[in-house]
């Protein structure tokens, strides 16, 4: 029998290699675990960074809001500082302008004072004729070119009964300024009750006038006429002339349109600021807020205008009951306030004074002085003269009686301008008001669609909520973790416990991430419910303010009826006074 030699297989290598493999797999498993942990740590750190970012973002928003607030406050401070400097500068400049007026034209003051002085001294019989003659001749020498000086020489020659000198001086006065000289002697003759002479001088004065291009002292005639200072014939002459001019100018539509526009600008100056403090929601949540505020401000015109008119028509007329005193005031006015050489400086003075009145606000001063600048125009139309006297009585040196008559004569233009302004203001009231809350906006005319707006807002919030929930999902890292875990388990399949652990851990991590996602999604409806509740209350508050606005506007707008009615009742003939004549005046 042959021997079978069976050798035992040498498995030590295989065992050694398997052991190595097992060690390597364990190492790999550990490495994967470490990697897993690192990934989880990175995910946490990303989350942490996310949270930190949100915190930083919120801080940045806070800083931004504070910066914006600081910027606004700084702008306000700068504006106030500029205004304060402008005010100081204006006060200095006003002194300079007045000094310049005094230097250039101060010597006229002596002549002006002498005019009334001579008249009053002659009335009292307290002065020698030689004194009058000497003083007037000295004034003539010291004020070359000034129209009033030869007038005083004429007056003095008249008092001294020197007809030859009177004629010479009168010719010179007429040569220097025919219009002022004629008006001057009309008033002088009225003062001494020479009615025919007064009427003749007045006719001469009127003959030189072009109603489209009057000099400013025409207001003296309107003033004297309104106060009943002229005799009945002269009053009749004034009445006839004014009626003629009104008729002539009314035929020219461009004049009427210009008058209407001037009146609109003048009336708009009477608009003030309405107290809009109660509209806290509308001012924040409506893009139409500016139009709403403007509409309410425009309604302040009605009461302001009515009060202005009442002030003019129901206040006292401060005129002396003594005719001579009243005429002396008129003469003083004529000789003091209407010399055209002074006009440029007077205009400057007016503007600088407006800056002071507006506390240094140059833009506001410019607007205010733009209209009143017309009173310093060298030549104006009769209609413009009436507007100036109506709106700027004290600036044009007209009395209250003249102001009343001017408004009464301008009544039809005032009514048209006022009606136009009312219509413009009503056109600009927003018919529909838009509400803006974050990304949502809705429109309402009068709040009657409140329920529809709330429903629309609800739908908008629901849509946003669904979009936000849809955005919350598992991120890529979670899936990577699961894939690595499953892969690792597959590699360790020969070692079931290790594989099982790998799978359980990866599934656990995945489940945790999934749980976080579910938690976030569940929180969203709660957040939106609070958001809805808060903003629905806001919408209701806005609707309430819109309803209030409509009611308030209607109430304030209706006040125009009282003002319109007051203007309608003004009749020109009621405002020509008969203070000094026993006879009835012929009136317009």
């Amino acid at each position, binding site marked *: 029998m042959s021997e079978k030699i069976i050798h035992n297989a040498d498995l030590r290598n295989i065992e050694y290699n398997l052991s190595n493999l097992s060690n390597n797999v364990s190492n790999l498993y550990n490495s994967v675990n470490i990697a897993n942990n690192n990934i989880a740590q990175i995910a946490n750190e990303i989350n942490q960074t996310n949270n930190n970012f949100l915190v930083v973002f919120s801080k940045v928003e806070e800083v931004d809001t504070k910066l914006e607030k600081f910027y606004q406050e700084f702008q306000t401070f700068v504006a106030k500082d500029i205004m304060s400097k402008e005010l100081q500068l204006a006060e200095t400049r006003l002194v300079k302008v007045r000094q310049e007026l005094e230097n250039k034209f101060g010597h006229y003051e002596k002549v002006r004072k002498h005019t009334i002085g001579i008249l009053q001294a002659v009335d009292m019989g307290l002065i020698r004729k030689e004194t009058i003659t000497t003083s007037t001749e000295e004034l003539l020498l010291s004020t070359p070119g000034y129209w009033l000086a030869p007038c005083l020489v004429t007056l003095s020659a008249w008092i001294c009964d020197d007809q030859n000198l009177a004629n010479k001086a009168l010719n010179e006065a007429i040569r220097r300024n025919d219009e002022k000289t004629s008006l001057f002697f009309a008033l002088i003759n009225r003062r001494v009750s020479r009615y025919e002479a007064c009427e003749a001088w007045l006719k001469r004065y009127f003959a030189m006038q072009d109603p489209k291009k009057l000099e400013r002292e025409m207001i003296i005639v309107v003033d004297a006429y309104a106060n009943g200072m002229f005799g009945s014939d002269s009053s009749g002459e004034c009445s006839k002339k004014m009626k003629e001019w009104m008729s002539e100018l009314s035929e020219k539509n461009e004049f009427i*349109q210009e008058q209407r526009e001037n009146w609109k600008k003048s009336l708009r100056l009477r608009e003030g600021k309405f107290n809009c403090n109660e509209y806290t929601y509308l001012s924040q949540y409506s893009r139409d807020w500016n139009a709403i505020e403007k509409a309410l401000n425009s309604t302040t015109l009605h009461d302001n205008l009515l009060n202005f008119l009442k002030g003019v028509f129901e206040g006292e007329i401060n005129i002396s009951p003594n005719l001579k005193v009243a005429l002396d005031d008129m003469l003083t006015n004529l000789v003091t306030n209407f010399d055209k050489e002074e006009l440029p400086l007077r205009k400057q003075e007016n503007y600088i004074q407006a800056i002071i009145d507006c506390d240094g606000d140059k833009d506001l001063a410019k607007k205010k002085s733009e209209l009143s600048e017309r009173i310093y125009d060298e030549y104006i139309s009769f209609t413009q003269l009436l507007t100036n006297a109506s709106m700027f009585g004290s600036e044009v040196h007209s009395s209250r009686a003249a102001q009343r008559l001017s408004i009464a004569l301008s009544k039809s233009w005032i009514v048209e301008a006022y009606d136009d302004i009312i*219509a413009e203001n009503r*056109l600009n009231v927003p018919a529909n008001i838009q509400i803006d809350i974050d990304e949502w906006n809705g429109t309402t005319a009068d709040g009657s669609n409140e329920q529809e707006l709330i429903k629309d807002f609800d739908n908008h919030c629901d849509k946003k909520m669904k979009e936000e929930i849809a955005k919350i999902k598992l991120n890529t890292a979670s899936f990577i973790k699961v894939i690595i875990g499953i892969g690792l388990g597959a590699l360790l399949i020969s070692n079931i416990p290790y594989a099982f652990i790998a799978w359980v851990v990866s599934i656990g991590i995945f489940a945790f991430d999934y749980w976080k996602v579910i938690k976030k999604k569940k929180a969203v409806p709660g957040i939106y419910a609070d958001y809805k509740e808060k903003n629905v209350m806001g919408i209701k508050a806005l609707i309430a303010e819109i309803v209030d606005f409509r009611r308030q506007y209607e109430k304030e707008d209706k006040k125009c009826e009282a003002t319109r009615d007051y203007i309608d009742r003004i009749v020109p003939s009621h405002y020509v006074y008969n203070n000094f004549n026993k006879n009835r005046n012929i009136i317009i």
Partner: protein
Amino acid sequence: MILNNKETTNSSKLTTSNMNTTRNEITKIDSDKLLRNKRSKKYIDALSKLDSGDVCIDKSLKEELLSIIREEFEQIEMTLWPIGIISKCYLGDNYEVHTLNISLQIIEHFKTNEKLPYGMDVARNIASNKNYAFVEVYNNYLRVVSNEGIVSEIKI
């Protein structure tokens, strides 16, 4: 509802050839002055009939209305007439305003938020204002007319 009468009968079509050749042409400036005058009661009453009865306005009423309008603007050159007239609509059923386009002789009723033709949208807001009977729309102006016929102008 739109009524669009495009019949070209000589008596109804508003062309310059039909104008009275003996009528003096008034300048634009004078026209502005005339257009500022108070409107007649007849004219105001006629325009208030746009709401009578139904959305469809009958032909004879339309002819009468256009005749009254021609009479009201008789002294004025036709190119300076209003493009159209717009006023508040009281027909109900969400109708807000109605318009009359003079050259095309069309009367239309419009609901809230429906856009108005011929550039008349600018007048919509004030046409609904209860203080005014209607608004005449011109190229550069709106002339709003009160129930008493008083005219106010708004430059556009």
